[in-house]
């Protein structure tokens, strides 16, 4: 959201409603035009990250249909609008304005044609699935692990043996800062020193849509199998995430998972909760 732009648009609308109308009487068509422009500005400039052009075109088409539907819902209003258009076309005093409008509309279409022909070509966008559904089980260093039932064995120590738990967290911290932070960053925001060179960008663990909504067994799968273990809708060929089963033990992976949650303050989603 770009609050500043949205507020400016709202302020302009209020200005039109309460100030401009004192001097100029706006008919229904003018109002609809103002609404159309205001909504277009809000979609184009008020949202961050910006919406793709195709989405804006789609939204504006829906809005145009809605405005026409609104207009035609009341026969009286429709007739009024129709009459004002006809009056604009036939009245002598509007002749100059009519000629200007008649020139401007095809000129705008021509300009749009020019712009669309000179648009920089866009590379195919990746449309990547960020959290693909996990397999039901994986083979980890020769043994099979059932991902639907696997629990982090260290998790239970949190309440039964705090000292042992703390030791595992410390170990997880060591593993993270020996292996992960070059990409995922000091503060786990996915902005490590190499992050700018990779595409897709490393995951941001502070974001509520990553580890906070995933089960620990899901993290185990992602860490153990890395990019090569992703399904094709998640572009395994471009992610730099290593398959950590080649370098870490099962316990070390569970430890680093515990550390991710301890550091960010998130709780993993409990086992058995629906997606």
């Amino acid at each position, binding site marked *: 959201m770009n609050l500043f732009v949205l507020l400016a648009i709202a302020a302009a609308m209020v200005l039109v409603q309460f100030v401009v109308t004192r001097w100029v009487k706006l008919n229904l068509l003018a109002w609809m035009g103002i609404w159309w422009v205001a909504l277009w500005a809000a979609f184009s400039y008020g949202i961050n990250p910006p919406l793709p052009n195709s989405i804006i075109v789609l939204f504006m088409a829906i809005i145009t249909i809605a405005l026409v539907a609104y207009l035609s819902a009341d026969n009286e209003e429709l007739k009024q609008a129709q009459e004002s258009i*006809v009056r604009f*076309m*036939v009245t002598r005093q509007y002749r100059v304005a*009519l000629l200007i409008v*008649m*020139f401007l*509309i*095809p*000129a705008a*279409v*021509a*300009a749009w*044609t*020019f712009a669309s*022909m*000179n648009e920089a*070509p866009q*590379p*195919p966008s*990746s*449309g990547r699935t960020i959290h693909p559904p996990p397999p039901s089980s994986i083979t980890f260093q020769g043994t099979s692990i059932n991902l639907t039932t696997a629990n982090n064995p260290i998790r239970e120590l949190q309440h039964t043996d705090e000292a042992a738990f703390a030791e595992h967290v410390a170990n997880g*911290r*060591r593993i993270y*800062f*020996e292996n992960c*932070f*070059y*990409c995922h*960053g*000091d*503060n786990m*925001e996915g*902005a*490590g*020193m*190499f992050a*700018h*060179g*990779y*595409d897709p960008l490393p995951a941001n663990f502070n974001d509520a849509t990553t580890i906070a909504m995933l089960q620990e067994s899901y993290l185990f799968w992602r860490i153990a199998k*890395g*990019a*090569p273990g992703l399904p*094709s809708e998640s*572009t*395994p*060929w*471009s992610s*730099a*995430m*290593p398959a950590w089963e080649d*370098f870490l033990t099962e316990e070390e992976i569970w430890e680093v998972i515990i550390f991710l949650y301890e*550091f960010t303050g998130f709780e993993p989603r409990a086992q058995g909760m629906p997606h």
Partner: protein
Amino acid sequence: MRILLTLLLVYIAYPAVAQQENDLGTEAQRAEGKEVYDIKCAHCHGYEGDASAVATPYLRPTPRDFTSGNYKFRSTASGELPTTEDIKRSIRLGMPYTSMPAWEGILSETEITDLAYYLKTFEPAFDGPYGNPTVVEIPRAPSYSADPDHLARGQEIFAANQCADCHGENGRGNGESAPELMDDWGDPIRAADMTKRWTFRAGATREDIYRTFMTGLNGTPMPSYEQTIDAEDRWALVDYVWSLSRDTPDYGTTVTVQGRSGELVLSEGLFEAAPQVYFPIVGQITEPGRAFYPGVNGISVKAVYNNSEIAIQLQWHDMTAETDGMNNPLIEMPMFDPAQPDTTMDGWSDAVAILLPSRTPEGLERPYFMFGDSRFPMSIWYTDLATDSAAVLIGQGSGRIADNGIALERSASYEDGVWTVQFKGPRNQGELTMPEATFVPISFTIWDGFNGERGNKRGLSAWYHLYLEPMETQSAVLPMAKWFLIVLGAELLIVGLVNLRARRRKTA
């Protein structure tokens, strides 16, 4: 009146008071600082502040050893301790292009202050007579002047003070003594590449540049030039250094390949009019051979094509050209192990590769960006810069790379810190075709021989694109005229009909 007088007295007395007492914070602030430090900082800077921790051996430049009292970034005279505000600034803004992030927005201002006070406890001198350093005054910067005489004066100062010895004739970090530079702890350290201002550790504004050469960077070979550069020449030097770099790296995502009608003869002139794109290069840290401090951090690319061939020019900054020895992407590398540092650093030449898919991809699929895989092999345009040949290799993963027998034309030169390597090959290579108006995935790998890079110890890029701009672009004039007339015609028809009807009604 009395109030004014009191204020005046306080104002006069204040510097004297400040000079007597060192700014060490309260016991509580330091304790709070320790809490933050142990969670956020200790894994790189060490629990004792001595830069001995799990992550330290993986990092270069090495994280600061706070027990030394040597701080790179200061507003104080060379060799002196930093002020509290200096330490806070380093925490706030971090050190660009190192592992030290900017903590602003992550830690609160209070936490940053507490941290600064805690860091001071690692060096007893902060509590002594040197704990109150003299601040070097930075005058307000006059606005930037690109006046040739002014910049020429700056260049003279640059030459007179031997800046080029480390930073190179044109500031590319390739001075004669650059390869031997060490910091105070005996670790190798690089002279700044002044053409990449965004990597300046102590900041990239003109005031930052001024401060850096006035205060020097403690613990590094960068001294202070306060005594040697006259006040009236200082901004000339700043502006000269400023003029060497663009503002931002401006990383691109697509190389636009321009069409040429004639033969493509590899030469400087061939690429002159082609647009240049700059891509980031980072260490390969996915597979064994992990390169945590690659020697190269970016690559500039240009490309042109004709009916049958494509020529691609790669340029990157390298401190030294390693043209002796050998290199090969197949050299096997062990996992990075701090306990067994890579000691076979000599004898490796510089090398570079353009990585392409082995067949024209359909949809989004492409080879694994490391060195391809068996599902989708990679076409590797490789050249070892100790040789004068280049070839296409087929990669099916690290360690599974074979020569497929296609030779490529190649030219390479190294001048004043810049490698320029040009490749030329056929546009159709078996299953890989490069038709006009299509996007072809491309990525890059650089081996910096000086840095011991070989095999999978290398700098690499993500997948980007080549786009072959159509040789003949359709002119927009006709379609524009067509649409203008169609819409105008429709308008005339509507207005005409409406008027006709209105007139009829009137007469009726």
